[in-house]
């Protein structure tokens, strides 16, 4: 009897183990999927005949900031709108926090925060009224408005209408509104566009603070400095297509050339010369210059994301 039991146990164990192995691959896949807060597969959208986003795929890991970098009209906002469920992708699919936007949109929307490019606040209402209203839509009853306003560094009169706010104040309020439901994933569409350095800084601080708390962030921008500073990875988008996604460091290391800039006096004027650090003849040229002319300034320059963007897309980010 015991022998049979033992055999049975062993048999069952091996069956289970076999089963486990077979499923290992899908488990791993699932775990990887679970680590992704956002994933977009082949998403496509065209307005009438104009193709705005063309089969774009990417993912964002939990707790990661993905900078979506592209010039005006590249398709950044259109992509964002598909991610948050305002536009339905004409092809492909989006899943957020493991849920498909075409199936569980309202469940997803309860856990995300969206900061729009347009400052779509209720202008005739106060900051507090705006925040409380949006909180109520999420079923958040007790919103600590004071703490939230403090977090985005916005000080306002209680009854002051949003219409009388400066651009920077409105943008800070936009950020505050994005956070009323304590979202796990943030979608921010050019949140620092057109702000003075102080306001932009305030907004960036909030972004980093949220990341620190574990939030996942999709950040569109055409400010390469911002993308460089804030993003864990950046995606270059142009004409509705992503040309590359990588960390800013990798991009600069692999695709950017580092240069040495030398200024020296020549014939009573000042001359500037760029030398590639990868160039073997560089030191020879430096010796040449230093022996003939008096060097005024000499420094190395790293390629910027802007340079790399131009390299990839043949287009400037701004203008």
């Amino acid at each position, binding site marked *: 009897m015991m022998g049979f039991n033992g055999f049975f146990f062993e048999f069952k164990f091996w069956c289970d183990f076999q089963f486990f192995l077979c499923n290992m691959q899908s488990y791993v896949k699932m775990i990887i999927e679970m680590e992704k807060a956002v994933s977009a597969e082949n998403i496509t959208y065209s307005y009438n005949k104009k193709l705005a986003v063309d089969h774009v795929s990417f993912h964002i890991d939990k707790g990661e900031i993905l900078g979506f970098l592209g010039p005006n009209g590249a398709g950044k906002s259109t992509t964002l709108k598909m991610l*948050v*469920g*305002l536009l*339905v992708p004409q092809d492909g699919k989006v899943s957020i926090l493991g849920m498909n936007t075409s199936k569980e949109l*309202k*469940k997803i*929307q*309860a856990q*995300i925060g*969206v900061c*729009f490019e*347009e400052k*779509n*606040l*209720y*202008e*005739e*209402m106060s900051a507090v*009224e705006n925040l409380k*209203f*949006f909180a*109520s*839509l*999420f*079923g958040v009853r007790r919103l600590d408005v004071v703490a939230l306003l403090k977090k985005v560094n916005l000080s306002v009169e209680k009854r002051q*209408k949003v219409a009388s706010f400066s651009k920077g104040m409105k943008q800070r309020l936009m950020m505050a*509104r994005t956070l009323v*439901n304590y979202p796990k994933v943030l979608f921010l569409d050019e949140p620092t566009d057109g702000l003075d350095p102080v306001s932009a800084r305030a907004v960036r601080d909030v972004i980093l603070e949220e990341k620190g708390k574990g939030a996942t962030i999709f950040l569109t921008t055409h400010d390469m400095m911002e993308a460089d500073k804030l993003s864990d990875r950046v995606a270059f988008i142009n004409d509705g297509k992503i040309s590359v996604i990588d960390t800013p460091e990798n991009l600069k290391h692999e695709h950017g050339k580092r240069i040495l800039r030398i200024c020296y006096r020549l014939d009573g004027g000042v001359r500037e010369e760029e030398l590639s650090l990868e160039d073997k003849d560089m030191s020879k040229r430096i010796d040449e210059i230093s022996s003939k002319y008096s060097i005024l300034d000499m420094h190395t320059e790293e390629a910027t994301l802007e340079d790399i963007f131009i390299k990839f897309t043949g287009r400037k980010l701004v203008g």
Partner: protein
Amino acid sequence: MNRILPIVKKDVTQIFRNRFIAVITFLAIFIYAVIFHIMPSKVEEAYSMGFYFEKGREVAEEQISKEEGLEVVWADDEEGLKKLVENEDVQAGLSFTLPEGKPKIVLYTSSQTPEEIREAGDVIAREAAYNLSGYPLNVEFNEVVIGPDLIGMQVPLRNKMRVLFVVVILAVEFYALGNLISEEIRKKTADAILVTPVSISEFMTAKVATGIFLTFFEGILAAFLLNIISVDTVIPFAVLLLLGAFLVVAVSFVLGTISRSFLGLTAYGTLFMVVFMIPAFILIFPGGYSFWINAVPSYYLIIPLDGIVNYGYVLSDYLPEMAYLGSFDLVMLLLGLYVLRRRLT
């Protein structure tokens, strides 16, 4: 529901924070109430009367000219007097004849003449007869109404106008609600709402609720100020108001969706408002009636309103009108919801 209520609350706040909308809404209600109360309830104070005297016109002229507030027109014969009354040149006509030596007085009134005027004419006539003959008992006194007899159906202008006022106040909601919807779309605040757990259906339901609530509330307020509400009229009035409110909401949905700017909204709004109000003007200027007015849906709101408020009719007298209005409400509302949903997706 717990997501609809906050939107309604926000919508109402937003509407009244808009100064233009707040002003036109409440000013309209207030001004109309004032106009109503300063308009004469007895129609016209100056009284014009035609006279025909077979004999003794000189004596009568002297006597009658002493009457204050009376405008006198003299006719040359009985037929001439009747013509005066018929053409509404005078509000009443009095003839004094002496067939077979016995004084005979006839008071002519038009069926278009409000009852109050007829009563006044009656008093004046009796008084004049007494003054002239000295002994009223011997006088044969007749009252003749020219035209179809609608006694009891005559209503002072101001009572007719209050139906117009109620309709104007409803129509002002075209702007309020149309602007609310158009702003949510234009300023993209609708997007901000639609990326929360609020669905498009909830968003639109909230808009319908806001519209019905406001229109209904303003209609009732106006009705109070215009003395429309009584124990008998309150329920039929409320029912009609509700049907009217749905019409206004439905039209505002279309209006708010198609107008791309505030200017467009006011232009379209005015157009809709004028069409909406035409049937109410017909109440005041019956001569302006033409057949196509039957095609304007608000006609089926205005006719029952007038009948119930001014003539004491009841709802069951207007079942066909209400059925037509109700179906128009439904069709219009479906259209409004359809265009708005298309705009939001």
